[in-house]
């Protein structure tokens, strides 16, 4: 059995007015890409700060490769490379100097240091820009360099907070490719947070869905989607979708997912089998279906099932107050 990279048991971080992380347990296995998916303010960054020893957990336990973050922080720090969400590079010096600085901070010495920086520049594909001041780099280059600075001391675990936020699709692909390579060729373990469904789905081997400081589901993307219980059928009607929902529930025993203004989505075991029955049932009740289509469940449907709302709804709606609270709590703590 491979050693667990991160073991978290009942982790909680409470601020005065807020339970940012509220008793979560999970394990990150060695050499996997593990993603934390959730809306802003769900507790992702707080969890990362606990793992990277930037803040002390209120209760619970975290071990990184067997080292406890509270009792043995320096050992944990040496084994982690951390890429924060906000830009952590030194803007006013060159890319090479940023790598040099990281290497020195982590005690990488002399000739090893020089060689590693060279290799890193090659891996990042930025050898020709190494001596340019970071301020002149593109967003994607900065992100790659940040990942590079987190790697020069050869950590076993790379922790990234929203690694592709603000990048264009091209830049995003490059970062994904880099992370995949690190896992495959260098045996690194990656722990990342994201609020991007497709990133979680395509990049991560396993994900934990987190909302309001709690983990609501954990597994591979396929398992989680399978857990939704089948296919999603969306139908549009000009008549009252509420009525349609009631009919389908009663006559076909179909599970209703969401009811919109002119639409309705339901979860069925198999779309092929159920679509005729749905149309039949509705037309015999004089409800005209304008359009109908089936889709495989996405992580958004998974989020909906376990968190009880759409993730975007959490982002713009109820959570802005909480985000502000988190920020305020951090400032107070600082």
């Amino acid at each position, binding site marked *: 059995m491979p050693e667990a990279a991160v073991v978290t048991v009942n982790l909680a971080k409470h601020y005065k007015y807020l339970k940012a992380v509220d008793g979560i347990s999970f394990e990150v296995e060695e050499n996997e890409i593990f993603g934390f998916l959730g809306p802003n303010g769900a507790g992702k960054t707080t969890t990362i700060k606990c793992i990277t020893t930037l803040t002390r957990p209120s209760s619970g336990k975290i071990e990184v490769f067997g080292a406890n973050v509270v009792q043995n922080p320096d050992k944990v720090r*040496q084994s982690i490379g951390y890429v924060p969400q906000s830009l952590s590079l030194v803007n*006013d010096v060159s890319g090479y100097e940023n790598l040099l600085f990281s290497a020195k901070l982590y005690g990488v010495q002399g000739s090893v240091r020089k060689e590693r920086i060279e290799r890193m520049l090659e891996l990042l594909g930025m050898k020709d820009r190494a001596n340019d001041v970071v301020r002149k780099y593109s967003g994607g280059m900065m992100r790659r360099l940040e990942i590079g600075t987190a790697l020069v001391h050869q950590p076993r675990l790379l922790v990234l907070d929203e690694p592709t936020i603000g990048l264009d699709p091209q830049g995003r692909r490059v970062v994904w490719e880099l992370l995949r390579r690190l896992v495959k060729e260098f045996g690194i373990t990656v722990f990342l947070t994201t609020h991007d469904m497709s990133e979680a789905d395509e990049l991560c081997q396993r994900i934990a869905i987190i909302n309001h400081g709690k983990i609501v589901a954990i597994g591979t993307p396929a398992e989680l989607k399978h857990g939704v219980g089948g296919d999603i059928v969306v139908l549009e009607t000009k008549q009252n979708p509420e009525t349609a929902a009631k009919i389908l529930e009663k006559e076909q025993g179909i599970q209703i997912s969401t009811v919109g203004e002119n639409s309705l989505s339901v979860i069925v075991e198999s779309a092929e089998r159920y679509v005729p029955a749905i149309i039949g049932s509705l037309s015999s009740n004089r409800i005209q279906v304008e359009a109908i289509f089936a889709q495989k469940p996405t992580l958004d449907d998974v989020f909906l099932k376990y968190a009880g709302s759409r993730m975007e709804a959490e982002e713009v709606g109820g959570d802005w107050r909480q985000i502000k609270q988190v920020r305020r709590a951090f400032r107070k703590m*600082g």
Partner: protein
Amino acid sequence: MLALFEKSAVVLELELRKMMHDQSDIIIRTIQPVLWLTIFGSVFGQLRQVPLSGVPYLAYMTPGVLAQSVLFMAIFTGVSLVWERDLGQLDRLLCAPIPRTAIVLGKALTGGVKGLFQAGIIFAIALVMGVSIIFNPLYMAAVIAVVLLFGICFSSLSIFVMTLLKTRERVMGIVQLITMPLFFASNALYPIELMPRWLQAISFANPMTYVVAALRALMITGDLSGLPTDLAGMGLATVIFVVLASAAFRKIGA
């Protein structure tokens, strides 16, 4: 202990590299002392009612202006630290396996080294303006040591105060609040004997007074009788501030 100094040196090195890439800060910082010497110095020097025991006013105030410019520069060490904290840049240092004190000491050392640049510039300006400075290598080495120590001392004070503040908005107000009394309740611009009694009492507790006295002795008067007291006062203040700053800073992160 070795790790502490080694990592402090790494922090210092980074700050100096930043400075080398962008020298505008250093250049802009030369303007203020020039203005103090040319405007304030030339007007105030006309008064001739300030008892300076025979020293021309411009010469009298030169060490004061030097101390002041190092003070202003050092106070911003803490300000930039708070910026870095709020921007998340400090996380890069905080998640590295280095002693917290190394971050404080490294930044404070930066304050000291930047102070040396100020000293060089003020020496040059003062010479151009005809101030006669003692050109004894030993004395000048001592000036360098005092400026370095002073930079470390007030950078630490600044780190201590700034890390106690929770928001960046409060920082600028506090900067004014600290620098004004430190500067004016000292012997930088006028002798302490001119002050009312209560202010004299304050100026004796002001580390700036000892710095200016030491610099004045080493640069202008050559009268070293008070130097041991001045150095002891400064050394004490430095130790206290470094300890306070490290303690306050440790609260950032676990």
